[in-house]
Protein backbone atom coordinates (compact mmCIF):
# COMPACT_ATOMS: atom_id res chain seq x y z
CA UNK A 1 0.00 0.00 0.00
CA UNK A 2 1.00 3.57 -0.50
CA UNK A 3 0.52 6.76 1.41
CA UNK A 4 0.92 10.24 0.15
CA UNK A 5 1.66 12.99 2.64
CA UNK A 6 1.12 16.63 1.68
CA UNK A 7 3.07 19.09 3.80
CA UNK A 8 2.28 22.81 3.55
CA UNK A 9 3.25 25.88 5.52
CA UNK A 10 0.35 26.77 7.79
CA UNK A 11 -1.97 29.56 6.80
CA UNK A 12 -0.62 32.72 8.32
CA UNK A 13 3.01 31.63 7.98
CA UNK A 14 4.54 33.70 5.19
CA UNK A 15 5.77 31.53 2.32
CA UNK A 16 8.55 33.51 0.61
CA UNK A 17 9.09 30.81 -2.02
CA UNK A 18 5.41 30.84 -2.97
CA UNK A 19 5.57 34.63 -3.17
CA UNK A 20 8.57 34.43 -5.52
CA UNK A 21 6.67 31.98 -7.74
CA UNK A 22 3.67 34.31 -7.76
CA UNK A 23 5.87 37.22 -8.89
CA UNK A 24 7.48 35.06 -11.59
CA UNK A 25 4.07 34.03 -12.93
CA UNK A 26 3.06 37.68 -12.99
CA UNK A 27 6.15 38.64 -14.97
CA UNK A 28 5.36 35.87 -17.47
CA UNK A 29 2.09 37.63 -18.11
CA UNK A 30 -0.22 35.38 -16.09
CA UNK A 31 -2.54 37.91 -14.54
CA UNK A 32 -4.79 37.24 -11.64
CA UNK A 33 -2.59 34.87 -9.65
CA UNK A 34 -3.55 36.11 -6.24
CA UNK A 35 -1.58 33.72 -4.12
CA UNK A 36 0.87 30.81 -4.39
CA UNK A 37 1.73 28.42 -1.60
CA UNK A 38 4.51 25.92 -2.15
CA UNK A 39 4.67 22.66 -0.23
CA UNK A 40 5.94 19.16 -0.63
CA UNK A 41 4.58 15.71 -1.34
CA UNK A 42 6.11 12.67 0.31
CA UNK A 43 5.23 9.22 -1.04
CA UNK A 44 5.58 6.26 1.27
CA UNK A 45 5.59 2.58 0.29
CA UNK A 46 4.16 0.82 3.30
CA UNK A 47 3.60 -2.73 4.49
CA UNK A 48 -0.01 -3.86 4.04
CA UNK A 49 -2.11 -3.06 7.05
CA UNK A 50 -0.21 0.06 8.11
CA UNK A 51 -2.79 2.31 9.71
CA UNK A 52 -3.49 5.94 9.05
CA UNK A 53 -2.73 6.54 12.72
CA UNK A 54 0.81 5.28 12.16
CA UNK A 55 1.32 7.59 9.19
CA UNK A 56 -0.05 10.46 11.27
CA UNK A 57 2.50 9.64 13.95
CA UNK A 58 5.24 9.73 11.28
CA UNK A 59 4.05 13.20 10.30
CA UNK A 60 3.99 14.43 13.87
CA UNK A 61 7.43 13.03 14.71
CA UNK A 62 9.36 13.73 11.54
CA UNK A 63 7.67 14.48 8.23
CA UNK A 64 6.17 17.83 9.22
CA UNK A 65 7.28 20.51 11.65
CA UNK A 66 3.91 21.30 13.18
CA UNK A 67 5.18 24.63 14.50
CA UNK A 68 5.00 26.01 10.97
CA UNK A 69 3.60 23.23 8.78
CA UNK A 70 0.30 21.42 8.38
CA UNK A 71 -0.05 18.02 6.72
CA UNK A 72 -2.64 15.82 5.09
CA UNK A 73 -2.44 12.05 4.62
CA UNK A 74 -3.93 10.11 1.70
CA UNK A 75 -3.84 6.32 1.78
CA UNK A 76 -4.25 4.22 -1.38
Amino acid sequence: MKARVYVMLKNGVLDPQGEAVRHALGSLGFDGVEGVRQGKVIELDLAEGTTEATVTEMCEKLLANTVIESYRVELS
Partner: protein
Amino acid sequence: MKAAVIVFPGSNCDRDLAVAFERAGADVTMVWHKDSTLPAGVDIVGVPGGFSYGDYLRCGAIAANSPICKAVVKHAEAGGYAMGICNGFQILTETGLLPGALRRNAGLKYICRTVGLQVATSDSAFTSAYAKGDTIDIPIAHHDGNYFADDETLARLQGDDRVAFTYAENPNGSVADIAGVLSANRRVLGMMPHPERAADAGHGGTDGTAMFSALMEQVVTA
Protein backbone atom coordinates in the same frame (compact mmCIF):
# COMPACT_ATOMS: atom_id res chain seq x y z
CA MET B 1 34.38 23.32 32.03
CA LYS B 2 33.88 20.21 29.92
CA ALA B 3 32.39 20.83 26.52
CA ALA B 4 31.18 18.39 23.89
CA VAL B 5 30.82 19.43 20.26
CA ILE B 6 28.52 17.24 18.19
CA VAL B 7 29.66 16.26 14.70
CA PHE B 8 26.99 15.36 12.15
CA PRO B 9 27.62 14.40 8.55
CA GLY B 10 27.58 17.85 6.96
CA SER B 11 28.60 19.84 10.04
CA ASN B 12 31.18 22.44 9.00
CA CYS B 13 31.55 24.73 12.01
CA ASP B 14 32.34 21.98 14.51
CA ARG B 15 36.08 22.63 14.59
CA ASP B 16 35.63 26.41 14.81
CA LEU B 17 33.29 25.94 17.76
CA ALA B 18 35.73 23.54 19.43
CA VAL B 19 38.55 26.08 19.02
CA ALA B 20 36.39 28.83 20.55
CA PHE B 21 35.63 26.63 23.57
CA GLU B 22 39.30 25.61 23.89
CA ARG B 23 40.52 29.21 23.72
CA ALA B 24 38.20 29.98 26.63
CA GLY B 25 39.90 27.17 28.54
CA ALA B 26 37.37 24.38 28.13
CA ASP B 27 38.21 20.73 27.80
CA VAL B 28 36.55 19.77 24.50
CA THR B 29 35.48 16.37 23.18
CA MET B 30 34.12 15.90 19.67
CA VAL B 31 31.14 13.54 19.68
CA TRP B 32 29.97 11.65 16.59
CA HIS B 33 26.27 11.70 15.74
CA LYS B 34 25.94 7.92 15.97
CA ASP B 35 27.04 7.87 19.60
CA SER B 36 24.12 7.55 21.92
CA THR B 37 25.71 9.00 25.03
CA LEU B 38 27.65 12.14 25.88
CA PRO B 39 31.04 11.83 27.60
CA ALA B 40 30.68 11.67 31.38
CA GLY B 41 30.72 15.00 33.18
CA VAL B 42 29.97 17.21 30.18
CA ASP B 43 28.80 20.67 31.28
CA ILE B 44 27.89 22.12 27.93
CA VAL B 45 27.02 20.68 24.55
CA GLY B 46 27.74 22.70 21.42
CA VAL B 47 25.58 21.91 18.40
CA PRO B 48 27.49 23.43 15.49
CA GLY B 49 26.55 25.02 12.22
CA GLY B 50 26.64 23.37 8.83
CA PHE B 51 24.26 21.29 6.77
CA SER B 52 23.59 18.22 8.88
CA TYR B 53 22.36 15.33 6.72
CA GLY B 54 22.38 17.66 3.73
CA ASP B 55 19.45 19.63 5.18
CA TYR B 56 17.23 16.87 3.78
CA LEU B 57 13.52 17.08 4.59
CA ARG B 58 13.98 20.29 6.66
CA CYS B 59 17.08 21.91 8.11
CA GLY B 60 17.89 20.05 11.30
CA ALA B 61 15.00 17.58 11.10
CA ILE B 62 17.03 14.42 10.57
CA ALA B 63 19.74 15.46 13.02
CA ALA B 64 17.13 16.13 15.69
CA ASN B 65 16.19 12.46 15.53
CA SER B 66 19.76 11.10 15.58
CA PRO B 67 20.96 8.94 18.49
CA ILE B 68 23.17 11.68 19.96
CA CYS B 69 20.37 14.24 19.93
CA LYS B 70 18.33 12.06 22.23
CA ALA B 71 21.28 12.27 24.66
CA VAL B 72 21.50 16.05 24.15
CA VAL B 73 17.79 16.43 24.97
CA LYS B 74 18.25 14.30 28.10
CA HIS B 75 21.27 16.41 29.12
CA ALA B 76 19.32 19.65 28.66
CA GLU B 77 16.23 18.35 30.41
CA ALA B 78 18.41 17.45 33.39
CA GLY B 79 19.54 21.10 33.56
CA GLY B 80 22.68 20.83 31.43
CA TYR B 81 23.86 23.67 29.21
CA ALA B 82 23.62 23.57 25.44
CA MET B 83 24.17 26.04 22.65
CA GLY B 84 23.09 25.60 19.07
CA ILE B 85 24.54 27.89 16.44
CA CYS B 86 23.03 28.29 12.98
CA ASN B 87 22.17 24.72 11.90
CA GLY B 88 22.55 23.89 15.59
CA PHE B 89 19.75 26.36 16.37
CA GLN B 90 17.59 24.73 13.70
CA ILE B 91 18.31 21.33 15.24
CA LEU B 92 17.45 22.48 18.78
CA THR B 93 14.10 23.88 17.61
CA GLU B 94 13.40 20.60 15.81
CA THR B 95 14.07 18.66 19.04
CA GLY B 96 11.61 20.92 20.85
CA LEU B 97 14.23 22.14 23.34
CA LEU B 98 13.72 25.64 21.96
CA PRO B 99 10.43 27.08 20.72
CA GLY B 100 9.71 28.27 17.20
CA ALA B 101 11.14 27.29 13.84
CA LEU B 102 13.51 28.66 11.20
CA ARG B 103 12.05 29.31 7.76
CA ARG B 104 13.64 30.19 4.41
CA ASN B 105 15.03 33.75 4.45
CA ALA B 106 12.39 36.26 3.40
CA GLY B 107 14.63 37.43 0.52
CA LEU B 108 15.20 33.79 -0.53
CA LYS B 109 18.95 34.35 -0.69
CA TYR B 110 21.73 32.77 1.30
CA ILE B 111 23.24 35.61 3.34
CA CYS B 112 26.86 35.59 4.42
CA ARG B 113 28.05 38.79 6.08
CA THR B 114 28.75 40.38 9.44
CA VAL B 115 25.71 41.96 11.06
CA GLY B 116 25.05 44.07 14.14
CA LEU B 117 23.35 42.19 16.95
CA GLN B 118 21.68 43.79 19.91
CA VAL B 119 22.06 42.00 23.20
CA ALA B 120 18.47 41.66 24.39
CA THR B 121 19.30 40.22 27.81
CA SER B 122 22.43 39.81 29.87
CA ASP B 123 20.60 37.41 32.17
CA SER B 124 22.12 34.12 30.99
CA ALA B 125 25.42 32.31 31.22
CA PHE B 126 25.89 33.00 27.52
CA THR B 127 25.28 36.73 27.55
CA SER B 128 26.39 37.82 31.04
CA ALA B 129 29.55 39.49 29.74
CA TYR B 130 27.50 41.86 27.62
CA ALA B 131 25.19 44.63 28.77
CA LYS B 132 21.60 44.68 27.61
CA GLY B 133 21.45 47.00 24.62
CA ASP B 134 25.07 46.44 23.57
CA THR B 135 25.58 46.06 19.85
CA ILE B 136 28.08 43.42 18.81
CA ASP B 137 29.28 42.48 15.33
CA ILE B 138 28.85 38.79 14.53
CA PRO B 139 28.79 37.03 11.14
CA ILE B 140 25.71 35.29 9.79
CA ALA B 141 25.81 32.63 7.08
CA HIS B 142 22.45 31.04 6.42
CA HIS B 143 19.65 30.40 3.96
CA ASP B 144 17.03 29.41 6.53
CA GLY B 145 17.35 31.83 9.41
CA ASN B 146 13.94 33.44 9.31
CA TYR B 147 12.76 32.82 12.86
CA PHE B 148 9.08 32.14 13.40
CA ALA B 149 7.08 31.76 16.58
CA ASP B 150 3.33 32.18 16.88
CA ASP B 151 1.99 35.23 18.73
CA GLU B 152 1.47 33.38 21.98
CA THR B 153 4.99 31.91 21.98
CA LEU B 154 6.46 35.25 21.03
CA ALA B 155 4.67 37.00 23.89
CA ARG B 156 5.95 34.34 26.30
CA LEU B 157 9.54 34.68 25.02
CA GLN B 158 9.44 38.46 25.34
CA GLY B 159 7.59 38.41 28.66
CA ASP B 160 10.08 35.98 30.21
CA ASP B 161 13.09 37.88 28.85
CA ARG B 162 14.09 34.88 26.75
CA VAL B 163 15.09 36.71 23.59
CA ALA B 164 18.90 36.66 23.72
CA PHE B 165 19.77 38.67 20.62
CA THR B 166 17.97 40.73 18.03
CA TYR B 167 19.26 41.97 14.69
CA ALA B 168 20.04 45.70 14.54
CA GLU B 169 18.80 45.50 10.93
CA ASN B 170 16.67 42.48 10.19
CA PRO B 171 18.40 40.58 7.34
CA ASN B 172 16.06 37.60 6.95
CA GLY B 173 12.50 38.42 7.98
CA SER B 174 12.64 36.95 11.49
CA VAL B 175 9.67 37.84 13.68
CA ALA B 176 10.50 40.66 16.11
CA ASP B 177 14.04 40.76 14.63
CA ILE B 178 14.93 37.70 16.72
CA ALA B 179 18.42 36.27 16.18
CA GLY B 180 18.66 34.05 19.26
CA VAL B 181 16.46 32.68 22.05
CA LEU B 182 16.87 30.99 25.43
CA SER B 183 15.09 28.01 26.98
CA ALA B 184 12.81 28.51 29.98
CA ASN B 185 15.65 27.60 32.38
CA ARG B 186 18.00 29.95 30.41
CA ARG B 187 20.56 27.16 29.96
CA VAL B 188 19.90 26.38 26.32
CA LEU B 189 20.69 29.04 23.73
CA GLY B 190 19.96 28.91 20.03
CA MET B 191 21.19 31.62 17.67
CA MET B 192 21.64 31.95 13.92
CA PRO B 193 24.76 34.21 14.01
CA HIS B 194 28.18 32.63 14.54
CA PRO B 195 30.02 33.89 17.65
CA GLU B 196 32.73 31.27 17.03
CA ARG B 197 33.54 33.12 13.80
CA ALA B 198 34.20 36.32 15.74
CA ALA B 199 36.60 34.91 18.30
CA ASP B 200 40.04 35.62 16.86
CA ALA B 201 41.71 38.76 15.52
CA GLY B 202 42.17 36.87 12.24
CA HIS B 203 38.41 36.60 11.91
CA GLY B 204 38.18 40.35 11.57
CA GLY B 205 36.38 40.75 14.88
CA THR B 206 36.37 39.33 18.39
CA ASP B 207 32.95 40.33 19.70
CA GLY B 208 32.04 36.65 20.11
CA THR B 209 34.91 35.85 22.48
CA ALA B 210 33.09 37.25 25.52
CA MET B 211 30.35 34.66 25.12
CA PHE B 212 32.76 31.77 25.53
CA SER B 213 34.74 33.34 28.35
CA ALA B 214 31.52 34.19 30.21
CA LEU B 215 30.35 30.60 29.83
CA MET B 216 33.65 29.40 31.22
CA GLU B 217 33.19 31.54 34.36
CA GLN B 218 29.50 30.89 34.86
CA VAL B 219 29.47 27.19 34.16
CA VAL B 220 32.57 26.39 36.22
CA THR B 221 31.29 28.27 39.23
CA ALA B 222 27.75 26.89 38.84
